[in-house]
């Protein structure tokens, strides 16, 4: 076992490529995830820019319909399975979770490393489909099209199957770690909300992912052997695929958003210097969302031909998501109230989150309503809605997390001025991209087409210009963060005066996380504890 040597940290000890590739240290595995995810984010982002470029003008702009189908499929698949799902739990969570608990590692370090390589292998298989005629099914792989299309859909669903296990492994690891490896004094009511969020996320990962995994196996078997479960010609039922798919994929959107909410809870209290408003309500709401997640999947299928009763029940149940979500939003706002707020980059992203996520959430209620959804199904309104949640929610929170924990990860500070410029471009660009899509969608512009009627041209051009603003924002972020990584000023142990445990350790932390065995004596947001 590697023991701490004075003056060393997890980044520089032990040395060598092999020590990184076979590392069992959760911090290094988190970093492997982090940089892999950044790479896939670049890939998915390029596909997004291509989509927007094609939609710059009606008709053929840079690609024909068949290529377009593939481009939006890759954008969706890469972003969902390789970026947003592992983005916060596997990258940020891996690093931060044991440190917040005061543990030396996650419960099962080897399983953790395995999860990374399973993820990487699955991602490679997914990208390899590009060389086998590509995939054009959309990321949802709906049967019967996906069982018949000549593209590499079979290979792609196997890639998603493989990556699913990476997600399951991470979930198992996190639950066991939170249960068994808390430092003395780290009671359940002192658990930072980020950890409650990761816990609830892990529960979904463990319970929902296997359902998708098996469904994808059945889909692949359907393609190869024609086994008939999803094929109406053989007595099967394609709607059953949708049920199975959304039984996972609705909870999956909470795999994406719950950790983001956790990050926001941390950042908002730190930069308001106030305890979170309603800690227990927040923790309960986190689990409330995870619980409701499992009983609302049918809202994706209002026009699929499921029964009216089912439509009614799913619409009704979906409304319940708004309650715990509302609790959270009000709680964050109440935390800001009378706080001493400082506008560092993490906080700017958190505030952007509050703004855009609320729009994403409220338009979700519009879509949950049966009558309006029938009108809006498969229009750009839906596209705008889920981008407001996934990008406006998860990606903003991810950026908040990256800036917040950057000093802890790398022991260096990023430059605040370019961070604000980049934040402004991303926030502005995001709204310029997706607000017009609400308008286009509510007026009936369908999604998944490479073409549209000329009336929608100006809205689409606005949207495309927005996508360039976002891209510019991220290019700037890449530059100043890369600079900070190598040349940034040395970070102190706790630059933000946070109260959670990871900041008690040096930046970057030693191999064993803490140079002493941590004992917790106060709550995670007790900013005025010393004064008492």
């Amino acid at each position: 076992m590697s023991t701490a040597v004075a003056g060393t940290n997890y980044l520089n000890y032990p040395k060598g490529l092999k020590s990184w590739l076979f590392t069992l240290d959760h911090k290094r595995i988190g970093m492997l995830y982090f940089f892999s995810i950044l790479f896939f984010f670049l890939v998915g982002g390029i596909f997004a820019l291509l989509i927007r470029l094609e939609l710059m003008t009606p008709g053929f702009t840079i690609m024909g319909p068949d290529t377009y189908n593939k481009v939006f499929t890759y954008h969706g698949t890469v972003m969902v399975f390789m970026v947003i799902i592992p983005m916060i739990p596997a990258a940020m969570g891996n690093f931060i979770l044991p440190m917040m608990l005061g543990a030396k590692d996650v419960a099962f370090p080897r399983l953790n490393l395995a999860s990374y390589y399973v993820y990487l292998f699955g991602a490679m298989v997914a990208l390899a489909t590009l060389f086998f005629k590509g995939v054009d099914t959309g990321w949802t792989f709906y049967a019967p099209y996906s069982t018949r299309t000549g593209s590499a859909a079979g290979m792609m669903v196997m890639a998603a199957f493989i990556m699913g296990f990476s997600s399951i492994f991470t979930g198992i690891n996190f639950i066991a770690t939170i249960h068994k490896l808390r430092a003395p004094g780290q009671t359940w009511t002192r658990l930072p909300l980020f950890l409650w969020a990761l816990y609830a996320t892990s529960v979904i990962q463990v319970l929902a992912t296997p359902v998708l995994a098996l469904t994808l196996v059945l889909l692949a078997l359907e393609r190869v052997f024609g086994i008939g479960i999803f094929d109406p010609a053989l007595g099967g039922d394609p709607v059953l695929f949708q049920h199975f798919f959304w039984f996972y994929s609705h909870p999956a959107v909470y795999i994406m958003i719950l950790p983001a909410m956790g990050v926001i809870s941390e950042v908002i209290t730190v930069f308001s210097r106030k305890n979170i408003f309603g800690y227990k309500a927040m923790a309960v709401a986190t689990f409330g969302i995870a619980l409701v997640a499992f009983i609302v999947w049918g809202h994706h299928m209002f026009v699929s031909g499921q029964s009216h009763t089912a439509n009614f029940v799913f619409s009704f149940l979906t409304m319940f998501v708004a309650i715990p979500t509302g609790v959270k939003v009000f709680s964050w706002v109440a935390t800001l109230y009378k706080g001493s707020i400082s506008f560092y980059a993490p906080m700017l992203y958190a505030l952007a989150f509050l703004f855009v996520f609320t729009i994403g959430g409220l338009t979700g209620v519009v879509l949950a309503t049966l009558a309006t959804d029938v009108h809006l199904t498969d229009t750009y309104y839906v596209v705008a809605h889920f981008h407001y949640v996934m990008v406006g929610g998860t990606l903003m929170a991810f950026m908040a997390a990256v800036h917040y924990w950057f000093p802890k990860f790398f022991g260096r500070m990023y430059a605040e001025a370019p961070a604000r410029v980049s934040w402004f471009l991303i926030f502005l660009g995001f709204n310029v991209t997706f607000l017009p899509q609400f308008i286009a969608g509510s007026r009936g512009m369908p999604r998944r087409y490479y073409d549209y009627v000329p009336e929608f041209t100006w809205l689409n051009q606005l949207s495309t210009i927005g996508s360039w603003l976002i891209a510019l924002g991220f290019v700037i972020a890449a530059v100043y963060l890369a600079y900070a990584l190598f040349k940034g000023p040395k970070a102190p142990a706790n630059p933000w005066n946070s109260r959670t445990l990871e900041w008690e350790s040096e930046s970057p932390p030693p191999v064993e996380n803490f140079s002493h065995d941590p004992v917790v004596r106060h709550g995670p947001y007790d900013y005025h504890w010393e004064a008492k």
Partner: protein
Amino acid sequence: MSSPHQSSSSVEHHVAHHFKDGEHEFLTAKQGMWLFLLQEVLFFSPLFVGYFIFRHMYYHDFHVAAQQLDWVMGAVNTVILISSSFTMARAVSNAQKGKREETVEALLFTILFAFGFLVVKYLEYSHKIHAGTLPGHFFHDAELLKAAPHAPLFFTFYFAMTGLHAIHVIGGIGILIWILMRARRGEFGPKYFTPVELTGLYWHFVDLVWIYLFPLLYLVG
């Protein structure tokens, strides 16, 4: 050669650095295994749900198709698997007591039962391949198709469910062989028997799945 009643493990186990002690490590590993098994339940669940839905939709056809299964074979396999669960439990308790020879012996019997199960499964499968009672497009029993047009779907579920279960049995055999080799080296004793215990949990789960599959496919027809 070691004595038959060795009282403790001869290979020392090191507790990983992030645990307080061996017990802490054991309890954590056990919780991880339970979580994995929970995941397994949900992994099998689409097949069970799908089977119930289609059985409800094509009740008559599923009834007729199920008659093709040989319940005697199914019953024999049920007995074999329950016996293997018994020997597995013996292996765990012997490992806890540090009885090396007995542990190895019980594991060996478990592996033999598992192979026995696969042999019976092989006989059943080859009979079905012969008779043409196969999933989807591969189905070519014209007479049965006339009596029950949706029989192919029943066999889709039959092969998918028993096939996925058989894969778990095969995986289990691999793990059991690995555990057996470690037991022979004397790695397990009162202080450290985690792998045997976890394999036991897994093996009982595989057994339990079959306990559901047997009546569902062979008997309720």
